[in-house]
């Protein structure tokens, strides 16, 4: 494939562009789901194509095609140059990239079992078994169990001399049920919502997840929610972990610290950010126990790779250190805006036909000192919420509302009744500054976000947010509509 890559680089060099790269990508994807005893999704797909990115006359152009041959590569490269020339009609300064050494390297996701070697029948068998357990009670009107595997093989070459081959694999699985009774619908899922748990590994994830072992419990909790009382409207201590805390990190810290957003380049769509660059190193984002670390080297992380799509080597850095804003998600174009001479390496594209954009890396809340049981004992009036059901945050990443599948009241140090429709609202810095306890490394676990949408055209990216449960003081919970 690098021979094809060379064609694009030769043309780009000959035309005297400022920078150019080509990424040839082959993506194999397998999606399986069973819904209510029927096959819901079943697709095994392969796509192959390439995208050429050109920086010419100080402006960007990008073109892609799904036909890999010398003529098409020439045509597409020239088209990218034409687009860059058109972009230069409206610029105020030339785009300059932060320097990065050239690399020749191969990197791949560590895996024990190749999921594409597993017959579909075996996967479907497990999904049907889960489905039959989930639907044993008539109030369960909808049950979906699913698996998804994606392998992306990339060949990336730049005009600066990098030749990077990467083979990145992710596996995911989970299930959810909807219990319905007299106009009430309650969801419960395992291990997490939005398609289940996804991590960068092979089919061995299926055994680790113990899907079947949890089906009955999850079904019964969904039924219990139908009879439960609503989450009270109150201000209480909130304990969250798992994929809800992962989403909280994602929405209120991850997106807020994408440097392209911060600089206004996403204003027309996703919005901007309150975490502006003059706050770097000064702004108290959270309480002193809050440490949030971006890490493209995290084992199992969905954003873990050898290099990003700017050909920058994977790194680990603080976004929030001891509660203070300490870094951003960067690419080579914008790193200079915060006085850096090197990008932290968080520029990624979905597939071959999208331009790389600044993305959230794996971003994790580092563990604290508490045992979970001690944290609950220490909470007089609180609520534990689990598994995200609803998420919404404003265009500067300040005001948010989250809803979860299930809540448990904490009364005088004891986890007591189940409550339904738990929601909470807050303002990002106030919320993170109210964090007074984080559980220790025994509870620290990776949670995958496999559906992060950003950009125009919209692209989906994946990343992980490891965390252990944490407590936030006096949070507004139980937001209601009276109708």
């Amino acid at each position: 494939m690098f021979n094809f890559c060379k064609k694009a680089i030769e043309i780009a060099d000959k035309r005297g562009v400022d920078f150019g790269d080509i990424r040839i990508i082959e993506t194999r994807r397998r999606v399986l789901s069973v819904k209510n005893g029927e096959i819901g999704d079943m697709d095994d797909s392969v796509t192959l194509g390439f995208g050429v990115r050109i920086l010419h006359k100080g402006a960007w152009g990008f073109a892609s095609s799904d036909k890999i041959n010398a003529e098409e590569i020439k045509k597409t490269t020239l088209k990218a140059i034409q687009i860059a020339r058109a972009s230069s009609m409206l610029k105020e300064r030339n785009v300059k990239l932060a320097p990065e050494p050239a690399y020749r390297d191969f990197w791949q996701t560590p895996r024990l079992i190749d999921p594409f070697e597993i017959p579909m029948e075996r996967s479907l068998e497990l999904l049907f078994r889960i489905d039959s357990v989930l639907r044993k009670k008539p109030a369960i009107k909808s049950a979906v169990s699913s698996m998804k595997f994606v392998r992306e093989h990339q060949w990336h070459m730049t005009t600066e001399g990098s030749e990077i081959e990467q083979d990145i694999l992710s596996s995911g699985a989970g299930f959810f049920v909807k219990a319905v009774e007299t106009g009430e619908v309650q969801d419960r899922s395992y291990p997490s919502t939005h398609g289940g748990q996804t991590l960068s590994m092979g089919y061995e994830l299926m055994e680790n997840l113990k899907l079947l072992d949890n089906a009955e419990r999850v079904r019964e909790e969904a039924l219990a929610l139908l009879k439960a009382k609503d989450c009270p409207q109150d201000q209480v201590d909130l304990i969250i972990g798992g994929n809800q805390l992962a989403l909280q990190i994602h929405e209120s810290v991850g997106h807020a610290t994408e440097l392209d957003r911060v600089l206004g380049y996403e204003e027309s769509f996703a919005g901007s950010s309150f975490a502006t660059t003059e706050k770097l190193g000064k702004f108290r984002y959270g309480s002193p126990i809050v440490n949030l670390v971006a890490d493209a080297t995290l084992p199992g992380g969905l954003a873990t790779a050898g290099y990003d799509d700017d050909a920058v080597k994977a790194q680990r850095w603080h976004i929030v250190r001891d509660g203070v804003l300490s870094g951003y998600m960067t690419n080579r174009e914008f790193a200079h805006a915060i006085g850096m001479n090197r990008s932290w390496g968080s520029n990624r594209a979905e597939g071959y036909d999208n331009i790389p954009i600044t993305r959230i890396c794996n971003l994790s809340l580092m563990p604290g000192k508490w045992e979970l049981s001690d944290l609950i004992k220490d909470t007089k009036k609180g609520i534990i919420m689990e598994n995200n059901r609803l998420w919404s945050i404003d265009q500067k990443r300040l005001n948010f509302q989250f809803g979860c599948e299930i809540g448990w009241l904490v009364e005088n140090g004891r986890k007591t009744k189940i409550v339904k429709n738990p929601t909470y609202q807050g303002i990002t810095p106030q919320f993170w500054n109210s964090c007074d306890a984080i559980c220790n490394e025994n509870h620290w676990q990776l949670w995958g976000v496999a559906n992060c949408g950003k950009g125009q055209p919209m692209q989906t990216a994946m990343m992980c947010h490891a965390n252990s449960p944490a407590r936030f003081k006096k949070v507004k919970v139980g937001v209601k509509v009276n109708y």
Partner: protein
Amino acid sequence: MKEHQKICGKIFSSAGRRPVEALISSAEFSLTRFADNVISQNVSKISTDVSIRILEGRRMAKVSTNQTDAAGLKRTVEKALWMLKFQKEDRHLLGLPKPLPVPPAGEKLYFENTAGFSPEDRAKKINETVKKTKGAGQTAYGTLDNGWSRTTVANSAGVFASHLETSATFSLTTRRGDGFGWAEELQNDVGKIDFEGVAAAAVEKAGKAVRPREIKPGKYTVILEPAAVAEMLMFMNIYGFGGRFYLEGQSFMSGKMGQKVLNEKITIEDDSLAGPCAGMPFDFEGMPRKKVVLVADGIARGVVHDRKTGLKMKTPSTGHSLPQPNTYGPIPVNVVFKKGNTEFKRMLENTREGILVTQFHYVNILKPVTLEMTGMTRNGTYFIHNGEIAYPVKNLRFTESIVGAFNRVEEAGDRLCISPSWFGKMAVPALKIQDFNFSSATQF
């Protein structure tokens, strides 16, 4: 079309005598993005994606590829045949449908000038817009995109339906200090986009949005501009009007057919064959789309079906299948919310006290049956006093049941605007709604 016919021929011959279905999507799409008055991203993609379903008794295999040469297609079909050997039986699997007459697209939807709109053409239009916004002391952000797409559904039972259309969208956000404005136009013909009109609307909004004041969250009369209504309607389309959600008891209309479910001023239809949302006249099973009245004068009248949900409800498909198989079921994709008779200006004048909302941001759903949702106001939120815009306000979060809100509609605007939707588009008017619930405020 000939290219798609050739692809089908190769697939069918490789599959032998087995029942086989092909879904082919070709598209060329280009988008120029601008921010802070300069072009920031500029992309173009061309692709053909082929999805193949092969059936054998109650077993089915589905494979996809974008390699459409003879070898690539043969390899893909062979993979499906291999997968079939290991496949589990699905006792609910339907056979492939026989062809039904598909009406031609009701409107002209393909325009050569739109397919050929170049990067230089886009840069020129954006440049003209930026000059205007700069002249007004504002900064411009947005996108201008154009492209064409052809979708073909064919099967070995004789179905062959193919549709070609172009589209272009100009979306503009402008900023003056802490005031934001926004406007957008979506057309099949780029020549019909009123670039000056879009710029003028966004600039006027941002100009009026400077130095927003804080107001207390609570219940207010609201005037929702069409883009804000569209954000809510999109969720109603998926969770309220789809046959599968209806059958599972998850729709607000479940068990209420023929009963009043929304305000009597509301009529909502799905119509791909004519009118403002005309589009592809067949679905992803190749079945002809039919016009479906979903709600008439507030009364629940129908939901859309694919063959599977149609069978369960003993009614034919309405032609609203998504690509099979899927877990969503059928979804309406060409939805028209019928306009009312109140001029926007008059709607404003009729309001003693209320809030005018340009657009919602990051809307999401908590309870599907009541369509309880939350989201933020964006790009121009204003307090109305004695029939006039009195001052801009800081953005608010709504937490509201859309079913409840659509029961409290006081007036509907006399003009429809087109908004993009999942797999299609929507035409919606502005709405004036009483007691709309804002649950909290933000800081800007």
